[in-house]
């Protein structure tokens, strides 16, 4: 009898632990796959790649599906996209929602989404459209759309880079923040996202530390926002010139923010338009 009691104690303890570990949210770490895109891909394959981008590099799930930040699209959006704007096809509606997110804001949500063409190629955007169409609807993204996107991406890759800004007086820090879509996640003057530290927290910080945070967002993670770590793209070092970066860093740490019109230090920039950072649908 004693041996049975001992056995029961061991098994019951293990059962409780196993039960508790199984009832908490289950998150599995998937293996990232190298994505190779070609014009002859069937729609289902496009959608499968789009799903990977949606759940992975695209960072879409940082907002969509969580509730307050953006609507849950899974299983729904493909069925309603064609009815959102009279005369606009599902495919076009989804495309515009990605590249011009402020065009339509779903009621109850804030305009916090950034233009996805900043972080994704056109071909990747079409895979996202295909995936979203597959959520309750029919995939109409075709080979022509995709071939054109690939050609556009190739042309963009071979195009001469935009002129590099070398004069700090030509840079307006607040405008730059808005243009780069930073307010999708960070707040400035009380406006903007809440998934990353407000820019006011950078005031007085070491400029080198702030610069590193922009160029290599994973270098130092704010503990309070660690759940969203990895959401910030690592492209800003390439998107901005060194001078633009200098002006931005100067602005964040409490300097003038340079610029022809002068900038405002964090905390004084309450007049940043609330919808300037993009929207969410």
């Amino acid at each position, binding site marked *: 009898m004693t041996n049975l009691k001992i056995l029961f104690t061991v098994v019951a*303890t293990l059962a409780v632990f196993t039960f508790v*570990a199984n009832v*908490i949210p289950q998150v599995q*770490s998937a293996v990232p796959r190298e994505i190779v895109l070609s014009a002859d891909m069937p729609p289902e394959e496009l959608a499968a790649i789009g799903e990977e981008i949606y759940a992975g590099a695209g960072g879409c799930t940082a907002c969509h599906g969580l509730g307050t930040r953006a609507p849950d699209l899974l299983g729904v959006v493909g069925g309603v996209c064609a009815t959102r704007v009279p005369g606009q096809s599902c495919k076009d509606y989804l495309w515009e929602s990605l590249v011009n997110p402020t065009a339509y804001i779903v009621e109850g949500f804030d305009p916090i989404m950034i233009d996805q063409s900043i972080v994704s190629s056109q071909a990747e955007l079409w895979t996202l459209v295909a995936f979203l169409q597959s959520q309750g609807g029919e995939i109409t993204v075709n080979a022509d759309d995709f071939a054109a996107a690939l050609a556009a991406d190739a042309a963009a890759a071979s195009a001469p880079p935009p002129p590099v800004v070398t004069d700090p007086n030509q840079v307006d820090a607040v405008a730059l923040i808005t243009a780069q879509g930073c307010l999708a996640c960070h707040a400035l003057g009380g406006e903007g996202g809440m998934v990353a530290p407000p820019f006011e*927290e950078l005031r007085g910080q070491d400029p080198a530390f702030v610069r590193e945070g922009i160029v290599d967002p994973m270098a130092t*993670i704010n*503990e309070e926002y660690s759940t969203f770590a990895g959401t910030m793209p690592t492209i800003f070092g390439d998107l901005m010139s060194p001078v633009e970066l200098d002006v931005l860093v100067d602005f964040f740490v409490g300097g003038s923010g340079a610029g022809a019109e002068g900038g405002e230090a964090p905390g004084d920039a309450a007049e940043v338009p609330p919808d300037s950072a993009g929207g969410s649908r």
Partner: protein
Amino acid sequence: MKRWMTRGVVTRGVLLAALALAVALPLLAQVPGPDYGEFNFLGLDRRGAVWIAAQLHLLFAAFVLGVPMFAVVIEAIGMFGGDEKYDKLAKEFTRLLLVAYSATAIWGAILVFFLSTLYPRFWAYLTAIFAPSMWVYAGLFFLESFTLYLYYYGWDAWKKGAAKKVHWCLGIMLNIWGTIVMFIANGWLTYMMSPPEGLTADTAPQTVQLWSAINNATWMPINIHRLLANVVFGGAIVGAYAAYRFLTSRTDEERAHYDWMGYTGNLIAIGALIVLPFAGYWLGREIYEFSQQMGITMMGGFMSWLWIIQAFLIGILFLAGNYYLWIGMGRIPGAERFQPYIKWMLLVLVLGVIVWATPNTMIADRDEIAAMGGIRHPFLQVLGVMSAKNTAVNLMILTTFLSFLMYRRANKDPVVQWARAGTVLQGAAFALCAVVVVFYGVYGYFVTAIVRIGFSVYQVLAVLATILFVIGIDMAMLRGAKSRGEIRWGRMPDRSQYALLILAVTFTWLMGLMGFARSGIRQHWHVYEVIRDTSEQAFTPALGPAATIISICVLIFFALVGFIFWLGGLAERSVYREAEANVKAGQEGRAALGDPMPAPSLGDVD
């Protein structure tokens, strides 16, 4: 005959492991072939097979490394203090080692077979870098095993004078060999976590410097963490053994002995557990310094909920450990005066567990988030951050120490003149420490994260300093103290022993969970960001499936350990029965001769 058989099992286990190494290393390092071997047994895939073999090998290894540490310490206490019961206890610990040692070797051999047949390419890669250290490992394994034989079988032969000191030195040697063996194996696994800078998938393994591969960023933190964890684990398993023997005892003498043994094992386990988090902090910091990405994966990524489970488990450890001490006070004359405080200590512990297990962010649907008023709960978000959690855990450690102090002082009345002042000073130290811990906990809400992380060091140092200061005063104050009565060893309710069993199971499961965390943060890499896992099991499972595997491992481990306990019981029981028979025979003989000498008690037997 029995001893010969035991020795044979051990030897065969060791030989098996060595043979596996000897066969696998040269062959597999050379021959090209598939990256992965096929395995499917009752739904278990190759990763599951390696996982279970590695986990069981590690659990037994932790046991055979942890137990000798305090066997040696307890032997020294007996040797230098002149109390033979400590010597007997140390010998009984060591007896458990013999079978556990062969189990370690057998699971090690199975692990090597699995690795070399199921992951041949990767195993060849590892052997190309680490082969020399593997041979040293095998050699030390032999040294360790033969030192163990000498240590155990020489126990009675070298019992007195200088020979006893030589015997004790053998125990120290046993620990040294075991520690080096563990450090070497840690070099292999930490290389997979934190390889030296500059390596790529194209780097030929033969060109990797052995020492730089071993002495990687997380090697020493893991070494220290495992060293301490082994002490905790060894103490917990000895506690479980004592509980098992206590519950199946048939005499008061046995019950008294195993009650004392269980108390000692638990004391060591909880004592070492208190310092374990500091080694954990160091390891965590080194992981972050090696790779922010890896650190985030561990603490804020898909594994973030693992720490909630860990908090739940450690909460059980604290509660069960304290519960055992509180019940134990029932067998100590004079402990009644501390009873009123227990409910308050329980309150602190329960609140501490609740705070520690509060999630920082939760996955919730839109309605739930709307009901909370944001992605963070308005109240729970205050408790879910590190400021609150560090405060909670430090107060729990302090409370546990207070329980121990009450237990220690229960049947003693200090006789030194400054006893009252000393007690006031101890109380003041506790109060001051609590104020420091709470102050930095609250202040942490008003500073940036990088400053806040530093506060945890102040909190930890305050607790450690208090523990050392208070125990120092206590030792001086209780010198020559008046006794209120002897501890009534053996007079413990059975439920206290089940608490010891739960402690051992929880410690073991926690080791499995932390092993999953350590290994899982590599994600889809065999060697982090160098050698990619291209098998179909490259994904890292969610906590639920991982917990199921961990539970299977723990169940197998306890089934085998139960068998070892039963064997230990057979040996020990025969000693008790022999002594019982001798006592009876002696009594009958003396009665026949009219001898007035008192009969020997069972406590006099070994």
